[in-house]
């Protein structure tokens, strides 16, 4: 059986999400670098894999799949017999995993990524950080994290007492915010969010990926 191929980029948060999942599921894979800094993701060979020109893409046998959150869900289901269970054990638990995964994708990640983009990426591409955007994004993120603080004061992980895709989906975005952009205060100033972050980011499956995600 051919090894799973991941087409991605070391610094891409979405790529890191998929790699964390592969590690949790004890899956080997071949990493094919798509050099975003050279615009490789907008060239025809890559567009044939993902017409939206975004990393990552996986190939698993005959299946080519893009969208990181679809990929991690597919891997979690297909390989449910091995590695960490990332989906919950009952249909009710699975519903909670879905709910908090969507909180990540619909409420958390946009303001978080905006902060990282302004502070880290904009200067790299020759622009000037827009502090007003940083401030308003941090405010939105703070409001969301107040709700997480309440949730995590009653629940060890987002979906319940078990680590799941809902937590995993946050890893690379929080890593970029805290460790690459130096904006960790929103996380570390909230007792339960901080504890949760320290717990999930100390998982060996994540640490391997974090090592590769350096500037």
């Amino acid at each position: 059986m051919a090894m799973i191929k991941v087409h991605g980029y070391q610094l891409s948060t979405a790529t890191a999400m998929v790699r964390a999942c592969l590690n949790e599921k004890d899956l080997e894979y071949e990493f094919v670098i798509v050099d975003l800094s050279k615009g490789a993701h907008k060239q025809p060979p890559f567009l044939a894999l993902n017409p939206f020109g975004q990393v990552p893409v996986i190939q698993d046998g005959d299946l080519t799949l893009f969208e990181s959150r679809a990929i991690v869900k597919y891997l979690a289901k297909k390989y449910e017999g091995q590695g960490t269970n990332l989906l919950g054990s009952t249909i009710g638990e699975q519903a909670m995993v879905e709910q908090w995964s969507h909180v990540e994708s619909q409420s958390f990640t946009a303001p978080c990524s905006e902060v990282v983009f302004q502070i880290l990426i904009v200067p790299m591409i020759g622009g000037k950080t827009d502090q007003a955007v940083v401030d308003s994004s941090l405010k939105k993120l703070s409001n969301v994290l107040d709700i997480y603080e309440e949730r995590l004061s009653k629940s060890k992980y987002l979906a319940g007492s078990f680590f799941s895709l809902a937590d995993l989906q946050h890893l690379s975005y929080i890593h970029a915010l805290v460790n690459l952009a130096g904006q960790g205060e929103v996380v570390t100033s909230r007792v339960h969010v901080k504890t949760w972050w320290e717990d999930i980011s100390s998982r060996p499956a994540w640490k391997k990926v974090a090592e590769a995600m350096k500037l």
Partner: protein
Amino acid sequence: MVVKLFGPAFAASSRRVLACLIEKDVEFEIVPLDLLNGEHKKPEFLALQPFGKVPVVQDGSLTLFESRAIVRYYAEKYAAQGTCLLGKTLEERALVEQWLEVEGQNFRPHGDALVYQLFVAPIFNVPQDKALIESSAQKLGEVLDVYEERLSKSKYLAGDFYSLADLSHLPSIEYILSATDKGYLIKNRRHVNAWWEDISSRSAWKKVLAMGGYSGVN
């Protein structure tokens, strides 16, 4: 036990859930919420949905929010009844998830911006951001170019079968067409338009629209 849906029936996210429940022959009851008077920001509602957004469903002891999570839950829970919305194999399911994410990540930001700027902002006397309207229309057009290519080769987004991925687009496209002047983005693309005509003619969707629109719309 009947599923309770909290939220106005005309909200796009409510419609996403209602379309799914009807396709799956699941009985439900709507508990209306007065968004204009901030009912969704009051403590009773925040106890159900701490982010203060609609809809929320209550199903026995389960309370669930995020419309895209809710539709996946019901499509899975009632896999054996009503329309099959998740494909038949693990690989088909993966493609459904992929195109659901495309809707949530690539389509939604620009679609929502257009509907908010052109339809919602005037209702609340919020000044429109003309630059954002233009750039959103441009970006949505680029996303729809990819859909046009996809739908020239595939009857529905995930393959030759109707799925949640198609359903998830219904509310947003309906508002773009009926409440903004950007409907040409859909209508001018042959395969996208044919796909829209097909999915919007499904009886489940027609029943959702028959529940009523925003009462302030002319």
